[in-house]
């Protein structure tokens, strides 16, 4: 990455003098190999991450411009049911005469929205709990938060999500985002707690105390900047998990009934007996686009991991 025009250090040339009593002796190179690449360079340096970023960009574009791209209204059931692929219905129609291709295109919106917001909320919860608990390590507060984290970690997520959703009458997208967020933060919180504990015991934190910094400033200005890559990785991970969870929930018929998502497509196709009738496209395509999206996001995380784990860079 660092193939820039570094001047060849000629001994004797005062390339970077270290002020010593005898200046003329002291030659100091500033090692520019120690200067890390920018974060986007590091991520982009991974081939997998590059592929992931490109795929994700395509999905985002499709979601944003869905009304322009989709040939039909996804909920319009005026087409001939069970039609095969045609110019009007690229992937055919459902048993109730809806256009599968348009459902697929609009479905990207739900997945990306859920991924973005559930990922964000769960990362915020995880970060706050992880930071507080890690910084307060050894106190009652930490014991309490760690206990809550561990409990949240061992409760199986899907049964809990199902139970929570089952009680609510209106199953909008925000309910789903909320439920997924509050059931999926625990693992990330534990990882952050561990990292903050290791950071907190570094001398630079003690040094900051001697500089007269207050606790909040130490946590947010001294420690947090060293955790950005972990936070980013946990956001991407949480978003990926949330997209999967939404699909699973919708596939069980617990999705947002007002809109089309890939999960609800799977639910409908199963409920209408698509498989028994040989309508495999209806089943196959939503699951595939979902898997490709999640794979792309996992690939991006390979790149993000390189930020926090420089020795992994060999593997990229």
């Amino acid at each position, binding site marked *: *990455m*660092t*193939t820039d025009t*570094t001047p*060849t*250090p*000629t*001994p*004797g040339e005062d390339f*970077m*003098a*270290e*002020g*010593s*009593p*005898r200046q003329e*002796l*002291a*030659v*100091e*190179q*500033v*090692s*520019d*190999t*120690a*200067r890390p*690449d920018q974060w986007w360079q590091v991520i982009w*340096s991974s081939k997998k991450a590059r592929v992931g970023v490109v795929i994700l960009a395509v999905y985002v574009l499709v979601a944003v411009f869905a009304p322009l791209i989709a040939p039909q209204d996804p909920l319009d059931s005026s087409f001939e049911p069970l039609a095969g692929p045609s110019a009007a219905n690229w992937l055919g129609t459902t048993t109730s005469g809806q256009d599968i291709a348009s459902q697929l295109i609009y479905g990207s919106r739900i997945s990306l929205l859920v991924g973005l917001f559930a990922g964000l909320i769960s990362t915020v919860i995880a970060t706050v709990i992880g930071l507080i608990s890690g910084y307060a390590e050894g106190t009652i507060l930490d014991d309490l938060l760690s206990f809550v984290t561990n409990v949240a970690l061992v409760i199986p997520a899907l049964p809990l999500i199902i139970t929570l959703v089952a009680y609510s009458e209106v199953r909008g997208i925000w309910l789903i985002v909320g439920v997924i967020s509050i059931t999926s933060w625990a693992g990330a919180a534990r990882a952050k707690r561990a990292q903050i504990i290791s950071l907190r015991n*570094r*001398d*630079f934190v*003690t*040094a*900051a*105390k*001697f*500089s*007269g*910094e207050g606790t909040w400033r130490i946590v947010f200005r*001294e420690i947090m*900047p*060293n955790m950005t890559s972990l936070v980013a990785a946990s956001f991407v991970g949480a978003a990926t998990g949330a997209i999967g969870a939404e699909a699973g929930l919708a596939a069980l018929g617990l999705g947002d009934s007002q809109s089309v998502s890939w999960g609800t497509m799977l639910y409908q196709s199963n409920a209408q007996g698509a498989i028994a009738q040989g309508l495999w496209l209806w089943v196959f395509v939503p699951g595939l686009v979902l898997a490709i999206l999640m794979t792309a996001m996992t690939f991006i995380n390979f790149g993000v991991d390189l930020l926090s784990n420089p020795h992994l*860079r*060999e593997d*990229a």
Partner: protein
Amino acid sequence: MTLLDVRDLSVRYEPKASRPLDAVQEVSFGIGPGEFVGLIGESGSGKTTLGTALLRLLQRPGRISGGSITFDGTDITDLPEDDLRALRWRDISTVFQSSMNSLNPVVRVEGQFRDAIEQHSSLRGEAVTRRIRELFEMVIIDPKFMTAFPHELSGGMRQRVNLALALALEPKFILLDEPTTGLDVVVQHSILENVRRLQAEQGFAVLFISHDIGTVLDLSDRILVMYAGRIVEDQSAGALLREPLHPYTKGLLGSYGDPRQETVKITYVPGRPPDLSLPMVGCSFAARCPERIDLCLEQDPPLVPLQGGRAACHVAVLQREEGGAGPHGEPKRGFEGPQFVKTADESRSALTNDVVLSVEGVGKVFERRRGFTVTRTEAVSDVSFDLRRGEVTALVGQSGSGKSTLARMITGVESPTSGRIVFHGPDGDQQVSGFRGRALRDYRSDVQMVFQDPYSSINPAKRLGYVLSRPLANYQGLKGAALRERVMELLERVALTPADRFVNRYGYELSGGQRQRVIIAKALAVEPRIIVADEPISSLDVSIRAEVLELLNDLVKENDVGILYITHDLLSARMLSDEVIVLNNGRVVEQGPTLDVIRAPKDDYTRTLLDAIPNPF
């Protein structure tokens, strides 16, 4: 006949994400049967890489990129792993750096001997157990520890076990890679004694890798000095001590002195080693070399036979060719670079300045609750001393002696369980243990700290300008241009000049010595009355330690600050301090003016510490 013959060996690292670098460059040397050879060099010199290459244990992205290694007549450079396996441990064994990690944590120690022995010999069952017992006795460990797990052994015991393991099959050659680094001086000594005795008895050859020229000189028959991936000098230990050929060797030797002398001089090598990933013209040491001539900047000096040894230095060769009478003058024994001198008079300055902090009969007991049993450990007991402005008090002791606990109490991190610490500040006498919150913050504008590890004490996410500006903004309310000006002043003060080259750098872009200067600048920022310096030089390379000591010494003189200097090393205590307090197991065993304690030690423990100072003078 040589047992190990290394010819033109090069090792190249080719990381995908950064420039390739040649960590070892065309290194040639031989080791005879039963010979004890030392290999010294500082961090980054390539000595451990060389050792790893000899064992054929290099991992990607490192590889042997040239040359050959011949062991006992067999070329092992490219020997297939299956054939190599027969040689491993039976003929070539090793003891790694004394990390926690060279034993498998989940297997009992005995099992880790047994697999090696059974792999390479016909011994089985009870015979193996007998052999292991024998080995344990050889390294003076009770054989009952055979059934222990590694984590149940102390650091010193673990390293003895590793030594015993290396001897298990009576190999012809053992590679010792910093086997005692990180252990207590006293423990180090006894382990190395043990090594030397066993080597004399059993006659195996040793390559002993270390950064510590003192121990290498004590133990080795012959010494290789490595700098920037090359061997720059190769001489018998006696000759190297008498007449070092390479200026770098002279610099290493000059880093030590006898603390008992009337006047102690220690030198330092300014600057830092070259970046091996950049192309280099001329001698790699030239930039730091006080004896440099123009030729050094143009031609890379080859390693040539000289005075019965070998050296890679134009000046050394020319001087000997000319017989001392030529334009390059007489060969010089000492390092001609900067030095830090302390005379007896300077050390004898009477302890008369104002007392700024007094420690009065302080004790600290830690209670550890484990289930229902409470274990009490007395870390410090009944310690008294004063810190005075413009004077340095050295607190000397091994790890676990209680010196760091004392530092934590003085800086208000912990409270004493008995006695009291009184700060004689501008607001009258105050007891330190009473400081909380705001008061503690204010107290810290008077008491600052310099840390042991300069690599972890600067926030890697912040620029130096920010790091230095924080205490100024917090304690003095400086802002804007005034703040920036003061930051620049501080950088200049610790000789990081020109300051504008450093202010926007990150800590990891600097060398260890430079980082330590930043930390010192930060401690100075608030013009404290006291600086607690906790082993500030122990993680630096030997050749640059005196530089930091000198800086601290100047601060005391010029800023009238009192320093509590915490160390395990009496030489640096002699160089810096006016008063010495020797701590052992939390108790003061000796206390008095530095010169008196060092020249006429009354306590055995003080003598042990004095003996531990390398003696290359």
